[in-house]
């Protein structure tokens, strides 16, 4: 898919995803070694965006499996279409039992869920398994076969093996420790907050109307907030929101009043706001 690390950064940039060197290198390796990519990091740094950008670049279809507590085989792998099977049985009343039996467990009656969709067919695909940590531990077991061999076993049909391997991205917010078995099948990538230079480029890209100097100030203030001991530090998504807010307010430069009034965009807890205001000398909020 990619020829070099620079190729990854350049092509991801065309879709509007500015990758840090770590991201570009790991994506390149995931493609080259054919291994799934496990992405961890705080909320709002672009874990899901990365999968979308890769799909966009590769001209592949994005297949998404959103994990949640209680997700099971029927939602993740496949399910037999019982209603259709019943219809088939009642339609073919005069058939022999053998004909019906072999027929109703055919591909036609199989409802493919994301994991099966991703490994069937020949067109390139990107499989995004979002918020893997939200799923129960048992689901990780299901994933193991898919992630290591890219195959799924359906008892009635046999084993379905991928002809073209999908590019797999798993994301996790680390609310639960993923199992060692799952981790060792993946390349590990931690996306942290970008450095000031990269974040400034991201802000300029996402909020084109913002002036260069203001973008720089925005990034510096956010950087200072991240160093504070806050309950929820602002993420890249919040930086962009704040930049948009400032643009909408028509602010040319930052001053106490502007920052004080718009601090709520960056910080989501009242005690964080108070603490930041004290640290940044904003006066009373």
């Amino acid at each position, binding site marked *: 898919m990619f020829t070099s*690390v620079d190729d990854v950064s350049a092509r991801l940039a065309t879709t509007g995803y500015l990758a840090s060197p770590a991201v570009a*290198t*790991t994506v*390149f*390796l995931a493609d080259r070694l054919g291994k799934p990519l496990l992405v961890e990091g705080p909320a709002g740094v672009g874990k899901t965006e990365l999968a979308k950008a890769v799909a966009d670049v590769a001209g592949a279809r994005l297949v998404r499996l959103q994990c949640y507590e209680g997700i099971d085989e029927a939602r993740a792998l496949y399910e037999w279409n019982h209603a259709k099977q019943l219809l088939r049985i009642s339609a073919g009343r005069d058939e022999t039992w053998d004909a019906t039996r072999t027929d109703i467990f055919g591909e036609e009656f199989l409802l493919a869920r994301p994991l099966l969709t991703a490994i069937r067919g020949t067109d390139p695909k990107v499989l995004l398994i979002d918020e893997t940590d939200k799923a129960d531990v048992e689901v990780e077991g299901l994933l193991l076969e898919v992630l290591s061999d890219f195959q799924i076993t359906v008892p009635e049909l046999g084993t379905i093996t991928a002809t073209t391997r999908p590019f797999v991205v798993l994301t996790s917010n680390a609310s639960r420790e993923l199992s060692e078995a799952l981790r060792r099948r993946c*390349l590990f990538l931690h996306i942290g907050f970008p450095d000031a230079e990269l974040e400034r480029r991201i802000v300029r890209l996402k909020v084109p109307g913002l002036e260069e100097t203001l973008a720089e*100030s925005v990034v510096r203030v956010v950087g200072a907030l991240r160093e504070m001991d806050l309950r929820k530090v602002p993420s890249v998504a919040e930086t962009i929101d704040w930049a948009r807010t400032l643009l909408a307010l028509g602010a040319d430069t930052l001053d106490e009043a502007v920052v004080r009034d718009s601090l709520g965009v960056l910080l989501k807890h009242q005690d964080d706001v108070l603490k930041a205001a004290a640290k940044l000398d904003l006066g009373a909020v």
Partner: protein
Amino acid sequence: MNSPAAQTGIAERLTGLVGALRAHGIRIGTGETVDAAQALEALGLADRERLREGLAATLLHGEAQRQVFDPVFDVYFPRRVGGPEGRADADRDALRDRLVAALAANDEAMTAQLAVDAVNGFGGYGSSPGSDGWSSYQTLERLRPQTLLARVRDTVRAQNAVSGFTDRLLEDEIRRRIEVFRRQVATEARRRVAERRGRDEIATRAVAPTSDRVDFLLAGRTQLAELRRAVHPLARKLATRLAARRRRAARGTIDLRRTLRGSLSTGGVPMHPVLRRRRPVRPELVLLCDVSGSVAGFSDFTMLLVQALHDQFSKVRVFAFVNRVDEVTGLLVHGGTDPRGLAARIRSETTVTGWHDSSDYGSAFGEFAERYPDAVGSRTSVFVLGDARTNMSDPNLAAIRRISERARRVYWLNPEPRAQWGTGDSAAPDYAGLLEMYECRNVRQLSALITRLLPV
């Protein structure tokens, strides 16, 4: 990389790196090592930072391992070999001037180069011409980069005349840049020492362990601060584990009466087993913490952690003691946002010491049993945190026996290594005979114990 000799060199280096990481407790299988070799092949050796990311992606399984990986990587894949030409440039003031310029421009490549020069110029000690060793401490002592703050600030201000809102952030930013420089010096000194003494030794000895393996009793100020920051993520993780345990426990046993009644509709065949419903009782928790100087770091951390877990319990009460005991539950609730001042506030706002300042478990337990008899009931689990060093006073086993008779369970978490229990003034074996005492030396052990011991 073309000749076979060079290739075996690289392979050895990689396995050496993996060995050093394993020695630090990072579990890496052969499969990952092979992946790392493939990554090495795909990326080549041209770009060191890419190689670093590539090896990290293949070898590591978590972000916490990164702080061990980076120094070890620097030792095995050094930026350069040997020192700069000659031992010139030992001019302290010239170096400081260049450092000011580099810090003002925020040029990390330049500060890295200066770190190399600094270690070369000021870090060497010993008598031999090359130097016997290299010390980052000595380099930083002579260079004193922290004193450059004002000069850097003035330089930056002079360069861009506009002083806007962000001007107030400048000093903190410069402090962070200086911190980066200090780390670069440490890395460089480690590299030079590794050249002299062998990579394997330095990679295992001179790299700090991950924060969840740091001994509570040995942790420094920065490490404790790091631990405090880890409280909330850890609490979230533990809460999920406790919830999972609770769910499993709630599945419970078969309710025979209701299963049989239900089976009447199927001709007496029990098709649908009915499980006994459990009343959702949220257990109560009492924490008894020694907050004397010797174990304060451990107690602080555990108190904050349990407080962060408070929604898992119907009632959490926390008591602190040195030689007298007092309740600090209220302080923890208000102190949720400022964990740093906790120890100071406990000292100033409560009575935990009587006539003297050294810990006395016996009288503290006695006072607890007397003053707070209603704190411990049949649903309460009691956790005692402390090293059981009573300073030769009476351990008052009768009091602890009284507490454990009333409580559902009593556990003791001891931050000392098991081998030291019972040495000197430690009454650990005496107490351990009456309740369950566990060694709890670092965050890793603590979280394992909490998942196992906390009642669900």
